[in-house]
C-alpha cells in the first residue's frame, strides 16, 4: 500500500434538482500520508468533498460535477450512519465484500478479512451475525471492510457523530491505530474538532458558502480566535457550549398546564418483526422517573440504556409490559393520538421519520391544524433560521436544517409537555443553539421538557438528570 496523493481542482457540484451549486471553484490537495481534518457548518459541502474524492458523485449520487478530482490510490470511505455499510448477515462475509469485488483469490480474501478484523479489535468470530452488533461495533466493522482493500486514503464522514462518548472513543482509536500502522493518508469530516486535533497534521474550515475560510495546522489553530471560527458553527476546542437561543414566549408558551407525567415501576419491551419472526428485547425494567413542570429533565446513559425508550413511553407511544405512566384515565398509551398530541410533543431521533408533507411551511402547521391551533408560520421559521426554505421539500434540506424543522414541526402547536429523542446528535453549533434554545425557552414558559441524550453539553444545560443503565435508573 502506498499513501495516496489526492486533489480537487476548481471543483464544483450541483445535485440533481437543486437550483444553486453546493460547491464552486474549490481547490484542496492532500499530500501522501497527510492527516487532514475538514470542518464547517451544516450544509457547507463537507460531505460533498468527501464523496467527490470517493468517486461516487455523479454515479451513486445524481448531479453535475465540474473541475477535476485526482486520487492516485485506492480510497476507503466510512459513512456517518454505521448501519449503511452492512452488506452481509455475518461479519466475516461482510468484510470480504471489498476483496471479492477486487476479484481476489479465496485464501487472500480470508487473510485480509482476518487481518482487518484484528486491526480494529473485533472480539467476535467470523460467523457472528452483523445484526447483533451495536452502533460502535458496526462502525468498526465498516472500518474493517474498508481496510480489507488496503486503501491509500481513508475518508471518514462524521464517523462518530451517532455514537456515545465511549463508542466514539473506540472508533477513533481504531482509526488512528490503522492510520499509524498503514501510513495511509486520512481525511476526517467532523463538527466536533477537539477529539481529533491532537492526531491530525492540518485543519481546513469551510464557511457556510462552501469556501475555505481557514487552512492551518492544529498548533496555529489553537492561537486563532475560536469565536471567529465558531461563527461558522464549528465546535472549536476550548469554547463553551453555544448560548441557547432565547425564543419569544409567544412561540413556546404552553397552551395549558402540563399533565404531571410520571413513570411508575415502568417496564417496556421492544418487539421487532424480522424474517424469522418477532424478536423481543427488554428495554426498561422497574423505572421510576418524573417529568417536572417548568424544567428540563435529561435522560442520560450509555447506548442501549433505554433513554429513547423512556422518552417514547412518557410520550405514550409505547405499551408497558409492567408498571405504568401515570396520567388521567384512560391508560396513557390508549389515548387517541389527537388528544395526546394536544398534551405532548415528541421529536423523533431521525428527523425524516416525522415529516408528513412535501413543503416546509406545511410541515409547521399540520399538527396545529389537526388540533385547531393557530401558528404564525413566518415567525416560527424565522426563529429557527428556516425562512428562506419555506417552500422547499423537507427531504432536500441538510441534516441541521431537517433537525430544526423536526423541532418546530413537532412543537409549533405549543404542547405543555415536550419530549426530544437525541435532538443534538451530529449537529453544528447553530442548530444546537436552536434546538436547546427551544427546549429551555419552553421550560421557562412553564412546559415540562424531557430530553433523551448522550450529549454532555445538553445534560449540563438541563435542570434535572435521570441516568439510566441497562434499562434501570442508576443515579438520581
Amino acid at each position, binding site marked *: 500500500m502506498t499513501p495516496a496523493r489526492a486533489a480537487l481542482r476548481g471543483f464544483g457540484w450541483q445535485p440533481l434538482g437543486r437550483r444553486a451549486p453546493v460547491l464552486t471553484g474549490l481547490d484542496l490537495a492532500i499530500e501522501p500520508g497527510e492527516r487532514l481534518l475538514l470542518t464547517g457548518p451544516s450544509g457547507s459541502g463537507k460531505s460533498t468533498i468527501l464523496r467527490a474524492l470517493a468517486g461516487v458523485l455523479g*454515479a451513486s449520487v445524481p448531479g453535475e460535477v465540474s473541475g477535476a478530482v485526482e486520487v492516485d490510490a485506492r480510497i476507503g470511505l466510512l459513512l456517518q450512519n454505521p448501519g449503511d455499510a452492512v452488506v452481509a448477515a455475518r461479519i466475516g462475509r461482510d468484510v470480504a465484500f471489498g476483496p471479492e469485488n477486487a476479484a481476489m483469490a479465496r485464501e487472500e480474501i480470508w487473510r485480509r478479512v482476518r487481518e482487518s478484523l484484528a486491526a480494529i479489535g473485533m472480539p467476535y468470530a467470523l460467523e457472528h451475525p452483523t445484526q447483533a452488533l451495536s452502533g460502535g461495533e458496526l462502525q468498526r466493522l465498516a472500518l474493517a471492510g474498508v481496510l480489507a482493500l488496503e486503501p491509500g486514503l481513508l475518508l471518514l464522514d462524521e464517523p462518530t457523530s451517532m455514537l456515545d462518548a465511549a463508542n466514539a472513543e473506540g472508533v477513533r482509536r481504531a482509526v488512528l491505530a490503522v492510520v499509524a500502522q498503514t501510513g495511509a493518508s486520512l481525511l476526517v469530516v467532523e463538527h466536533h474538532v477537539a477529539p481529533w486535533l491532537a492526531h491530525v497534521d492540518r485543519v481546513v474550515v469551510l464557511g457556510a458558502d462552501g469556501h475555505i475560510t481557514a487552512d492551518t495546522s492544529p498548533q496555529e489553530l489553537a492561537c486563532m480566535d475560536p469565536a471567529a471560527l465558531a461563527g461558522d458553527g464549528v465546535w472549536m476546542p476550548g469554547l463553551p457550549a453555544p448560548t441557547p437561543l432565547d425564543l419569544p414566549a409567544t412561540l413556546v408558551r404552553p397552551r395549558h398546564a402540563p399533565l404531571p407525567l410520571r413513570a411508575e415501576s415502568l417496564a417496556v419491551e421492544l418487539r421487532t418483526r424480522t424474517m424469522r419472526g418477532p424478536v423481543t428485547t427488554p428495554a426498561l425494567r422497574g423505572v421510576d422517573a418524573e417529568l417536572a413542570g417548568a424544567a428540563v429533565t435529561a435522560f442520560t446513559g450509555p447506548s442501549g440504556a433505554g433513554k429513547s425508550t423512556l422518552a417514547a413511553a412518557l410520550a405514550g407511544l409505547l405499551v408497558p409490559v409492567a408498571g405504568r405512566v401515570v396520567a388521567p384515565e384512560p391508560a396513557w398509551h390508549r389515548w387517541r393520538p389527537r388528544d395526546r398530541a394536544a398534551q405532548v410533543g415528541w421529536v423523533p431521533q431521525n428527523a425524516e421519520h416525522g415529516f408528513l408533507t412535501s413543503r416546509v411551511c406545511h410541515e409547521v402547521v399540520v399538527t396545529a391544524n389537526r388540533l385547531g391551533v393557530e401558528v404564525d408560520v413566518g415567525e416560527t421559521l424565522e426563529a429557527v433560521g428556516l425562512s428562506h426554505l419555506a417552500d422547499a421539500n423537507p427531504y432536500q434540506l441538510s441534516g441541521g436544517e431537517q433537525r430544526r424543522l423536526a423541532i418546530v414541526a413537532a412543537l409549533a402547536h405549543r404542547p405543555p409537555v415536550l419530549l426530544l429523542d437525541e435532538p443534538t446528535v451530529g449537529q453544528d453549533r447553530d442548530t444546537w443553539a436552536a434546538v436547546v434554545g427551544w427546549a429551555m425557552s419552553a421550560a421557562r414558559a412553564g412546559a415540562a421538557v424531557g430530553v433523551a441524550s448522550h450529549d454532555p453539553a445538553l445534560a449540563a444545560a438541563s435542570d434535572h438528570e435521570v441516568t439510566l443503565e441497562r434499562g434501570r435508573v442508576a443515579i438520581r
Partner: protein
Amino acid sequence: MTRPEARQHQLRGAVLRANPLVLLAAGLLVVPGSFAVRSLPIGLVALGAYLLAGVVLLPSLRPALGRLGVVMLASVMVVYSTWLLGGHEVDTALTAGVRVLVLALPGAVLAVYVDPSRLADELGQRLGLPARFVVATSAALQRFDQLGQTWQHLDRARRARGFGPSRNPVRTFGYAASLTFALLVSALRGATQMSIAMDARGFADAHRRTWAEPVVWTVEDSALLCLGIALAALPVILYAL
C-alpha cells in the same frame, strides 16, 4: 465448513443447513403441483403431508404459524368468494381454499430460512447468474428486517403528531398508505447510502468478482430436494389415480 455448525448451534433443524436452492425449489415446485388439487380429499392429504414434513423438519413452529395465519386469511377469502360466485357449493369452495394453502404455505414458510449471502453464492457460482445483480439483491434482502423497525418509528412519529389509525376504515387506509409511502422514501434513502458504501468498496467496477465462500451440495440437500419433489408430486399422483 464451520458455517453450518455455527448456525446449528443457534437453531436446530434440517432446513437451517439446507442449500438455499433446495428451499427455493421446494417452495416453487408446489406451485404447478397445487393445480392437481381438484378435490377436497386430495387437497387435505397434500396439506397434511406438508404439515407433517414441517413438524419434523422445522426448528421452530412459531414463524411458520405466523405465516400460516396470513395464508389462511387469503384462503378464507378464496373460500368465501368461490362459495358466493360458484353457486354456493361448499365442496368446491373448500377445495379452492385448500388449494391456496397448498400453493402458498410451503414457500412462505421456507423463505424464512433462506440466508441471503448463501443464496447469492448459489445463484452466482452454481447457476452463473450475473454477479452484480445477485450481490445487490442479497444486500437488499439482508436489509429487509430493518423495514419493520423503520415502520415502527414512522408510526410513532405520526401518532405523536396527532395522526393515527382510527375506527374510521377510510382514515385507517389513508394512514397506512401514508406510512407505506414514507417507508418507501426512507428505504430509497437507505439504498442510496448503501450504494455509496458499496461502490466505495469497489462494487461499481466489479464486473469480474470472486466469491469468499465455496458452494456446497450435501447428501442431505439431495434428500431434501427429493422430498420436496415427492411432496409437490403427491397431489398429481393422487389425481392421476
